């Protein structure tokens, strides 16, 4: 028999249970919480502090929240976000909510980041984002008056490294849950829709008109996205290959992740390159602006006529429905803010 034993002194952080909206528990499988990064009160608090702290950027002018602002459902209102050196990327910032329900854990517009923990490594060193490097960031955190204690409380160690920083941020990000819009309340029987909003929902669900539900969720999938990659007909020639640049498969060229259509009231401009400033432009795109290409999704119909040509009443109603998915509780939730 082989026998070993060890004794260790550790601080135990308090386990935290997500407050999951009823519709999510009813309709969806459980959120993804990695076993090696369980949620704790201390871990989440640390992650929040880091998310809003400019210490992560090269010249200490930018935090994650600079491009992921709570009042914009954790995106920003710029077409391309400004990095610390005034360099612009070529992608629109993404809103952050319900990330623990991205079951395939493929993040970014092109799915290049696997898992939230890994994703959080990238912005710090990206030259068009925070343009720092992890060695410097860790040194600064380690010499900080508060951070070492906070890491001790959250992870039982005074030694800070990038793995623990990203674990804390990911814990915080998993608490960003949006599930209390007017439409959610309608589904729970707490409010009613106007006839325009109801008609808009019908268009969204109607295969002959909007046919949006095949990619953007439904009353039975309250994420309002499939978190999958499609070419929704924005271009015939791609300046950004999207998923195709990641997989190397030409059949993936021009494919991007379907965003959730929750919180559109706060997240303009739209699409991976922020090309549309308004929802009218988005709806016109689907109705008559589709561009043919070999990878356009087959769910895009009548492409040679630009789309299904919705009536102006249907367009207005579809927009009214989309706006019922705005969750004001989410953007005003003080728990999520500094």
């Amino acid at each position, binding site marked *: 028999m082989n026998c*070993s034993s*060890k*004794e260790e002194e*550790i601080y135990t952080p308090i386990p935290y249970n997500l407050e999951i909206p009823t519709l999510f528990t009813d309709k*969806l*499988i459980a959120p993804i919480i990695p076993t090696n990064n369980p949620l704790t009160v201390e871990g989440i608090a640390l992650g929040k502090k880091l998310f809003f702290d400019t210490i992560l950027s090269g010249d200490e002018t930018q935090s994650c929240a600079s491009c992921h602002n709570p009042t914009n459902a954790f995106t920003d209102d710029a077409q391309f976000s400004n990095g610390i050196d005034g360099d612009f990327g070529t992608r629109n910032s993404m809103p952050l909510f319900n990330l623990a329900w991205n079951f395939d854990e493929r993040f970014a517009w092109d799915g290049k980041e696997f898992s939230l923990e890994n994703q959080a490594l990238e912005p710090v060193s990206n030259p068009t984002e925070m343009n720092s490097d992890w060695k410097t960031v860790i040194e600064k955190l380690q010499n900080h008056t508060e951070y070492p204690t906070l890491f001790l*409380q959250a992870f039982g160690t005074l030694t800070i490294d990038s793995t623990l920083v990203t674990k804390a941020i990911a814990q915080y990000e998993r608490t960003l849950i949006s599930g209390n819009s007017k439409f959610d309340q309608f589904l729970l029987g707490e409010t009613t829709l106007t006839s325009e909003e109801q008609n808009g929902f019908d268009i969204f669900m109607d*295969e002959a008109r909007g046919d949006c539900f095949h990619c953007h969720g439904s009353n039975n*999938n309250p994420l309002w996205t499939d978190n999958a990659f499609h070419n929704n007909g924005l271009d015939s020639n791609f300046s950004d290959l999207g998923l195709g640049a990641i997989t190397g498969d030409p059949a993936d060229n021009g494919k991007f992740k379907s965003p959730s259509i929750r919180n559109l009231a706060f997240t303009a401009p739209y699409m991976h390159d922020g090309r549309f400033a308004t929802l009218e432009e988005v709806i016109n795109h689907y109705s008559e602006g589709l561009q*043919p290409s070999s990878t356009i999704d087959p769910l895009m119909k009548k492409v040679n006529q630009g789309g299904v040509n919705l009536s102006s009443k249907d367009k207005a109603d579809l927009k009214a429905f989309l706006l019922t998915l705005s969750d004001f509780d989410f953007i005003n939730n003080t728990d999520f803010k500094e």
Partner: protein
Amino acid sequence: MKKFALILISSVLFFTACNKNKLDCCVFPETVTVTLKFTHNWDGTPITATDFNDFKFTTENGELVSIEKLRYLVSNITLDSQIKNYNLINIGENTDLEINFTDINQGTNNLKFTFGFADADNTDGIYQDLNSVSFNVPEMMGGGYHFMQFDGKYKDTNNEDASFNYHAIRAVDMSDTNNLIFEDTSFEVDLGTVEITNNAIVEVKVNIAEWFKNPNTWNLNELNTVLMPNFEAQKMMSANGKTVFSLGDIN
């Protein structure tokens, strides 16, 4: 200021020398494990995810097609006296192409399943895993779930790319939206008996070409998109589906 809890962790690991499963060495097993393996072909030419996104198959009616997405549901999968509720097969993502049965009795066993959900099982919104991958049918069409989502492109009469969405659901006649008429277009696939003498892999062959062939020669130029609310198209799909599945090798 929060109080820290100080705890002691002791761990003792034991390793024992012999931990062999007695069944392995001494007793002949009376029950076995059977894996149902769904393989796909186009009139005999194998189809996997790598054959997607390419105009390489021709329908009975003569249209050249490219498959981009193909996932379908089988339910009440029955072998011996065991029943599995349902399984969503996704060829493009190469997921759930196999169904495992354990504790199957050796001997002659019946194998059958339902394509899609029969009405009794097709309740709106109740399957969380299927909701999570957006396999639902809108409530305005009676709710429940897709049986199949088969999306791709075909070359139209001008030799231009056009979309098809061959989506199978429970047929619904929507001519009076206040009074929907349904017809259960799920169907049973009875593969007959299989002889199980040992742990085995039983192949279920799925000939995709049959969806366009028999008894209805499918014309994609006429029936391509918006087929979910098309009552007649749904009945034709159901009829064509009956020759799609057959029993393959048992290994």
